[in-house]
């Protein structure tokens, strides 16, 4: 009797687990893996949601289905774009299930795109709630602003990568080679959005005519002509009160990144007088990071000011100036001084633009003040926009040239050797 009871209990346990288990079971092949989500403003105060899902069978050759058929998935398109409009983001996404054969799965979403129109007119505060609340979206998804219609970007032909989403990811991952744009992750964006003393910013994605395109490409015999347009990430969109208020140029963006301590590399060029007017030298910024910058607010006569201290190390990458004797330490220190001036110029350009034109504190000066003068901060918090716009900013840059490359002095043509 005892054994019977034991067996029946065991059986019940197994049955219970089978009954209750599996309810959220879904196979990989039933998922529409979304790589990119874009939001746009639609007529009638609606939100247009556009997603890019991957077609796995077309991406990877050698799958079970394609193996007998020569592999490679043939010429199938490798992604599928879905568009739906509704009043809320979630509603629109669910509306897509009316036309998609697979359940959309956002856990692998790489990029969220917000159209400039939406960002400027409606602002991001309302729509970002969904992304923060939903458990599938990751906090490290890139959050970008798109100039123009996101649908264009989602259909851009790709060659190296599989989908436009991966092209965007690739460009962002190589940001450290230029530091000319300032992308922000969803989590970081939300954090900047909800905290006082800093306003969010992010990079702008846009289409740009493809300079590699030539008329020759269109002649018969050319395999696949290059596309007319290329994806291009540039500058930064700055926000105030959750709405986009303007954009920074490449130079200003790097100024912003210097202050935020997020420059990870990139070229920087200075010009020095030579025989034929000024000639350029380009330095490569070495990993800079948050430790290289110090924000030091100060109080002078009851007025808040800000001192920005930057110290950076660079390598000489190219010198077109043939007259410089790079073996001479004094020449090097002259270069360093020159370089400091350029960096200071970048930072000041950004500060001026933000103070005078957009009146928004994307630099995080408010947070620095809050940290150093909490009492003062409480007083100025309400009118920080005005205080920021008028506060004096001093920039102090220290630069060190670490290495000058494989050769010391430029190789001069023998004409100049006489000198």
């Amino acid at each position, binding site marked *: 009797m005892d054994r019977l009871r034991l067996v029946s209990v065991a059986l019940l346990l197994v049955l219970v687990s089978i009954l209750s*288990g599996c309810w959220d*079971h879904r*196979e*990989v092949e039933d998922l529409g893996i979304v790589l990119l989500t874009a939001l746009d403003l639609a007529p009638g105060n609606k939100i247009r949601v556009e997603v890019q899902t991957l077609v796995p069978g077309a991406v990877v050759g*050698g799958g*079970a289905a394609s193996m007998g058929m020569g592999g490679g998935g043939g010429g199938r398109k490798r992604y599928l774009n879905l568009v739906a409009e509704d009043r809320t983001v979630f509603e629109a996404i669910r509306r897509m299930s009316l036309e998609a054969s697979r359940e959309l799965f956002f856990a692998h979403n790489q990029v969220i795109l917000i159209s400039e129109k939406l960002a400027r007119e409606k602002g991001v505060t309302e729509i970002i709630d969904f992304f923060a609340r939903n458990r599938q979206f990751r906090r490290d998804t890139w959050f970008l602003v798109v100039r123009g219609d996101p649908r264009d970007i989602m259909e851009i032909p790709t060659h190296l990568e599989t989908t436009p989403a991966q092209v965007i990811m690739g460009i962002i991952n190589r940001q450290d080679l230029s530091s000319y744009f300032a992308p922000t992750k969803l989590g970081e964006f939300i954090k900047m959005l909800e905290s006082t003393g800093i306003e969010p910013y992010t990079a702008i994605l846009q289409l740009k005519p493809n300079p590699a395109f030539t008329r020759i490409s269109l002649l018969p015999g050319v395999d696949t002509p290059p596309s007319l347009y290329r994806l291009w990430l540039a500058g930064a969109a700055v926000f105030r009160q959750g709405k986009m208020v303007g954009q920074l140029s490449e130079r200003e963006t790097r100024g912003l990144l210097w202050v935020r301590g997020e420059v990870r590399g990139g070229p920087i060029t200075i010009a020095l007088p030579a025989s034929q007017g000024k000639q350029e030298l380009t330095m490569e910024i070495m990993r800079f990071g948050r430790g290289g910058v110090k924000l030091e607010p100060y109080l002078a006569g009851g007025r808040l000011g800000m001192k920005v201290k930057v110290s950076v190390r660079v390598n000489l990458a190219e010198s077109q100036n043939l007259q410089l004797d790079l073996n001479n330490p004094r020449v090097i220190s002259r270069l360093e001084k020159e370089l400091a001036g350029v960096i200071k110029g970048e930072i000041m350009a950004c500060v001026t633009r933000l103070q005078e034109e957009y009146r928004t504190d994307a630099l995080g000066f408010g947070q620095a003040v809050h940290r150093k003068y909490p009492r003062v901060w409480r007083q100025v918090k309400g009118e920080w926009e005005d205080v920021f716009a008028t506060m004096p900013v001093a920039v102090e840059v220290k630069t060190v040239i670490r290495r000058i490359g494989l050769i010391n002095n430029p190789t001069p043509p023998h004409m100049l050797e006489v000198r």
Partner: protein
Amino acid sequence: MFRFWKKRTRILPREKGNPAPSREDYAQWERSYEADELKKMPLGPRLKDNLALIKRILGNSSDLVIREFRLGVDGGVPGAVVFIDGLTDKGTVNDTLLKGLTLESRMAGLGGRDAGNIFALVRNFMVNTSSVREAATVFELLDGILYGDAAVLVEGETRALLATAPGWPVRSIEEPTSENLVRGPREGFTELLRTNTSLIRRRLRTPNLVLERITLGERTRTYVEVVYIRGLADPRLVQEVKSRLSRIRVDGILESGNIEELIEDNPYSPFPQVFRTERPDRVVSMLLDGRVAIVTDGTPFVLVVPAEFIVFLQSSEDYYERFFLAIAVRWLRYIAFVASLILPSLYISLTTFHQEMIPTRLLISIAASREGVPFPAFVEAFLMEFTFEALREAGIRLPRNVGQAVSIVGALVIGQAAVSAGIVSSLMVIIVALTGISSFVAPVFSMAITMRLLRFPMMVLAATLGIFGVMMGLLVILVHMASLRSFGIPYLAPLAPLHTGDLKDLLMRVPLWAMDKRPSELAKGDPLRQEEGLKPAPPDKKGGQG
């Protein structure tokens, strides 16, 4: 299992003075004789009666040889040599027994005057084998004959002489097939008990090596030796082993596996709690830990107790190769061990519940390879694992030449055809292959089987509850393992009651010169294995040594 064969027939009073077989005698030929009954049966003074009795009890079997002769001069005293053809060496019987008994007794002039003394004379002067025993009862006599002894019976004696002259067929010592080593002795145990104990004894010349014989199996009467090193093995452990063995009352012991099942601590556990090996060197190293070995006649597999979990993941080669390699191989084994348990279930749970945990690119290729597969991942995995296990089983049982054909067919059918037909995904094939390879890494087959079995419930758990289920399964297994004991030693021994000192032989394998203590759960009497300071170093140059 075979109990119902045993008919307890009552003993009938033997009729005296009537040697001609009667109806009752025929009836007796057809009945069986029990050990208890035979033990009570003494040998009679009349040779004829005794021989008739032996014949009757053995059912007049065709391999029973009775050679009658006469002892000494003047017509002599009747005697007989009784043995089983095939078990006893005929040459030995001829040269040392019959020669002495017939020729030398005549030369010694043995005659009627020696009547009362004859047995002692035979024993002391005429039987030239090295080992001689006396048997007083029919039981002892038969027990000896059936083991391979030759019995000498003499008219007028109620005792018989048992001379050892084994001549049974033996297999020579070969390399053990189930535990191959690259470096290490090539000798393996054979089916013969004496050979096996000699292999152990030859490696352990200490006088403290003790062998204690126990006979198990009411019908097979298999000899079993309990082997241990006095002073190292805990006396209570030895006592426990002996008492567990003596509790065994079965019909037959055909393999040490029969014993294992009858003495293990928890018969319902999927985990083996008794170690078994074919290698004498492994047995010796475990004896030196303070364990007890059980050598069974008729099988090359020697049991060793207690056996905690980690013993099953160690190979004797770990101690023969230099320790760097041993550590690396050991960790490889640990990882493969875990993989063989949870790899398919992990795959199932990740692909059916937790797709967000898979790196994007991997997810894409998984999704692509599963495109068009008609089964859910669980069914797919189950199908493949089933096929793999069937293939493995087929490969083992079949003759070697056919076995290869099976593996070719299997590889083709599973690997190629199934994938290209779109029935299974190529990734699943990889998973199954990885699992299969991992399960072969376990050095002891019995532990590999355990993992193989547990894999299936784990897969069910993964398919129903995802990672949560897998973790539950692992937890249940862990709790069960922690509750297990092998002859009083906790199964997770150096880990679960943590003995940090013993971790040197678990997390890594420290060099031999640093392994100065025995496992602390064992060998409590003599914990020190060797002196400290054995680390080799070049001679000190300043000291002027060369």
